[in-house]
């Protein structure tokens, strides 16, 4: 119960910081839509595992031109029911997210630099540098 309240307060504060630091609601919108859709698909029984998306600390080594402060630069997908979840499963999930380069570029424009996939109770996770999936070079050349 207390965990739940704590996570709600954290989510609210995160959203306030997102709006203030980015000057728009895009980051809040993207997290909200992802969480809603993942929950819906899970409830319909199509997804075996429930995933939630949050902003978390990214990896400072994966910084790019539009990265935000590293404590807020991670796009984290947490697998809530993570029993028997292997590292290969996490890598597999990450492949579905990085499949679309335009979407990855959008995440980069919103200040994210690290894609993190992690089980809720597992120690290990996967970190992927977004700048290796898509780059902003063309946009910088055509400015």
């Amino acid at each position, binding site marked *: 119960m207390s965990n739940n309240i704590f996570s709600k307060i954290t989510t609210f504060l995160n959203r306030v910081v997102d709006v203030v630091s980015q000057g728009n609601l*895009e980051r809040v*919108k*993207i997290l909200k*839509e*992802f969480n*809603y*859709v*993942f929950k819906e*698909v899970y409830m319909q029984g*199509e*997804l*075996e595992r429930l*995933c939630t998306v949050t902003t978390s600390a990214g990896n400072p080594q994966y910084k790019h*031109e*539009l990265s935000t402060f590293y404590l807020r630069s991670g796009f984290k997908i947490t697998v809530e029911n993570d029993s028997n979840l292997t590292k290969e499963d996490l890598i597999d*999930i990450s*492949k*579905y*997210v990085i*499949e*679309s380069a*335009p*979407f990855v*570029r*959008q995440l*980069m*424009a*919103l200040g994210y630099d690290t894609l993190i996939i992690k089980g809720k109770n597992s120690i290990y996770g996967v970190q992927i540098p977004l700048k290796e999936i898509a780059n*902003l070079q063309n*946009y*910088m050349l055509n*400015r």
Partner: protein
Amino acid sequence: MKMSIIIGTCLLLIFIILYFRKIKFKRRLRNKVLQDGTSDYKGVAENIALSIAKSRNLYKELIIKAHPDRFLDSKKEIATELSSRITKAKKNYSELLHLKEEVENFLNNNK
């Protein structure tokens, strides 16, 4: 003393100007990338979730149906091209759905 104050102020001004130019550049770059992308995050999220859930089975179904070894001559070429596109879209459910239509049309024409 006066000289050092003037130099210090100039350096500070240059630093402030460079800082604001950097912020302006970042904002322009961000807007450009966001304009080119989609604002339909729900659609993107749905595609990712459904891809995780369904694309593996759909991929298997399509790759078997469009396998080049099942066809001869010119049909074989089309099947090869379809197969390579199916493999490329292996983890993209919406793309696989489009390809499913193409595969079905191709198979119907082949009858």
